[in-house]
């Protein structure tokens, strides 16, 4: 007999699942427990090169309170039902809203969307998981709080809780977002509610201002993990500076990445350039105004000759550096002089400011990202190949020119082997670089799907063989990446999992942890 569900959790009988669903309905009401194919359709679309059936959920639970979540985990423990928690569900290119494993129940916290506090003087926020950056942005504007957000490129539709918990990055001086997290409330698998740091102390008013609390620092174990369900999240906001000067620097040769990085590193470490600078390849920026089909047709990766024509037609460098200065006008004037001197030294750089490129669509969206304004223009990347296939390949590199050149060349070579293009950028951290490559392919073309999967697998294999670790990955490759960090770390993750979630009900498979 056909099941009444579109999928069932692994190892859970339909009878037990029926019983769990009845209890979920008692907790949440009928309308907040979704089980029909039509209701669950929006959760099943992914951009990964695997069948969406491998990540089809069995049900979705729309919880709105901590108390409901406590009751839900009790039911999950009773029937051994695994739940995959999402907040805004817009982890596009990393798995979207779908669970890691077929049959898991999605605990959807999007409706838990209260902004609990924004403190203008101390510049912090405390929010629930469903709050989007757009919602918080509007709140800050409406209340004239003079604070800026740091966001990933899917700004408006994503949110601070999910993005920071997955250790995403933004583009302002607060771009390494988890550095600016301060205090979480977490529902544990046994139903207890933990407030991390100073939040553990009743009547404390320092939960969102002092990160460390007392004893071992715990916040980190609730990021990229499945040890608890974060229901409140505190983080620091950047006071809007009196002046802001975004700029772009273009270079014409791929090997110039060495000079770029060697020039930027001391400026970034010393704080002259305070934000998460981006060094974007021409093919990362081109889709904003260029169409791939105007330059190349048929299978295979785009030839360098076509890339050079795109650069000429669309006024791009092969590398396009986007950075900004922040502060008073006097501070910016002093630092601008230092930046100009450093970049003009070799004669290779072309420096562009708002005066020259204010109308340029790529510059405009990059400038918005660097000052916490809403834009989804980076999604133009998805038009490059079309067909809705995308995976973020995200190895970490030292902020050292020779290393970035090696990583770029290796990535480009492996992508070319599978007929895919290098749409890459480096996001400059304090001493590291997030090398971010959008592996774009047509998900409607079975040959490209196969090629993309094999390509991604080879990228991970080859990079880890050279000691280059991946900082974040989509749900189809989490186990593979976990393996690359070795057995000791994997065992520790497992030990913590057993201690905190003995029945394995919370997001089994997240970061390869079960």
């Amino acid at each position, binding site marked *: 007999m056909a099941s009444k569900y579109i999928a069932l959790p692994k190892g859970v009988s339909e009878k037990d699942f029926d019983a769990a669903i009845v209890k979920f309905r008692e907790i949440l009401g009928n309308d907040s427990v979704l089980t029909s194919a039509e209701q669950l359709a*929006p959760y099943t*679309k992914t951009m990964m090169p695997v069948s969406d059936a491998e990540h089809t959920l069995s049900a979705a639970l729309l919880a709105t309170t901590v108390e409901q979540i406590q009751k839900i985990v009790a039911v999950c423990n009773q029937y051994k039902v695994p739940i995959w928690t999402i907040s805004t569900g817009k982890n596009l290119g990393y798995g*979207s809203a779908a669970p890691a494993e077929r049959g898991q129940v999605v605990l959807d916290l999007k409706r*838990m969307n209260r902004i609990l506090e924004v403190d203008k003087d101390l510049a912090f926020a405390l929010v629930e998981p*469903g*709050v989007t950056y757009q919602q918080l942005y509007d709140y800050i504007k409406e209340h004239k709080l003079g604070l800026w957000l740091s966001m990933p490129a899917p700004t408006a539709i994503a949110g601070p809780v999910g993005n920071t918990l997955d250790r995403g990055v933004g583009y302002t001086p607060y771009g390494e977002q988890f550095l600016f997290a301060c205090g979480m409330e977490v529902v544990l698998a046994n139903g207890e509610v933990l407030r991390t740091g100073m939040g553990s102390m009743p009547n404390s008013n320092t939960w969102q201002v002092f990160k460390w609390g007392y004893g071992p620092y715990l916040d980190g174990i609730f990021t990229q993990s499945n040890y608890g369900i974060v229901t409140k999240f505190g983080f620091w906001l950047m006071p809007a500076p009196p002046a802001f000067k975004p700029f772009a620097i273009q270079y014409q040769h791929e090997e110039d990445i060495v000079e770029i990085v060697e020039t930027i590193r001391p400026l970034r470490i010393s704080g002259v350039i305070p934000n998460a600078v981006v060094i974007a390849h021409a093919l990362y920026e081109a889709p904003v105004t260029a169409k791939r089909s105007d330059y190349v047709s048929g299978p295979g990766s785009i030839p360098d000759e076509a890339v050079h024509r795109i650069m000429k037609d669309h006024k791009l460098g092969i590398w396009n550096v986007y950075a900004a200065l922040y502060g008073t006008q006097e501070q910016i004037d002093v630092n601008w002089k230092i930046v100009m001197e450093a970049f003009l030294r070799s004669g290779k750089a072309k420096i562009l400011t708002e005066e020259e490129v204010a109308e340029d669509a790529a510059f405009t969206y990059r400038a918005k990202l660097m000052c916490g304004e809403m834009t989804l223009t980076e999604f133009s990347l*998805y038009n490059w190949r079309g067909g809705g296939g995308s995976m973020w390949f995200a190895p970490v590199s030292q902020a050292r020119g020779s290393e970035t050149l090696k990583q770029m060349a290796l990535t480009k070579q492996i992508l070319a082997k599978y007929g895919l293009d290098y749409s890459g950028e480096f996001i400059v951290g304090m001493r590291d670089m997030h090398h971010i490559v959008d592996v774009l392919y047509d998900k*409607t073309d079975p040959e490209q799907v196969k090629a993309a999967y094999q390509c991604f697998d080879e990228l991970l294999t080859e990079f880890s063989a050279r000691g280059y670790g991946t900082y974040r990955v989509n749900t189809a490759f989490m186990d593979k990446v976990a393996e690359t960090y070795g057995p000791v770390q994997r065992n520790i993750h497992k030990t913590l999992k057993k201690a905190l979630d003995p029945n394995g009900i919370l997001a089994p498979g997240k970061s390869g942890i079960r």
Partner: protein
Amino acid sequence: MKRLKLKASAFFFISAAMLMNNAWSEQEYKPDAGFVWKDGAEIYAKVCAYCHEANVGPKILNRELPVAYIRAIVRSGILAMPAFRSSEIDDESLAKLANFISQKASQH
């Protein structure tokens, strides 16, 4: 017997934790219904327009697209366009959004 006792104390602990959490919530946060969409125009401006008015997605306004088609695409997504769940745009708000998008230019 010992196991029963342990289970009972665990139950008590969880119940106590829940009560304690209720106390925290009431003490620190005023009840707040959370965010709700005002109308179709707001959803269009704060979700759709970032792509469909920015040369990322196709133009969808002033094409008198059928309401049922808009609702289906929003829920299922298409190619690179992500799907939007009822937890993000509830059914009632989606109906307003679909009407907003499908109506004639003069009505915007």
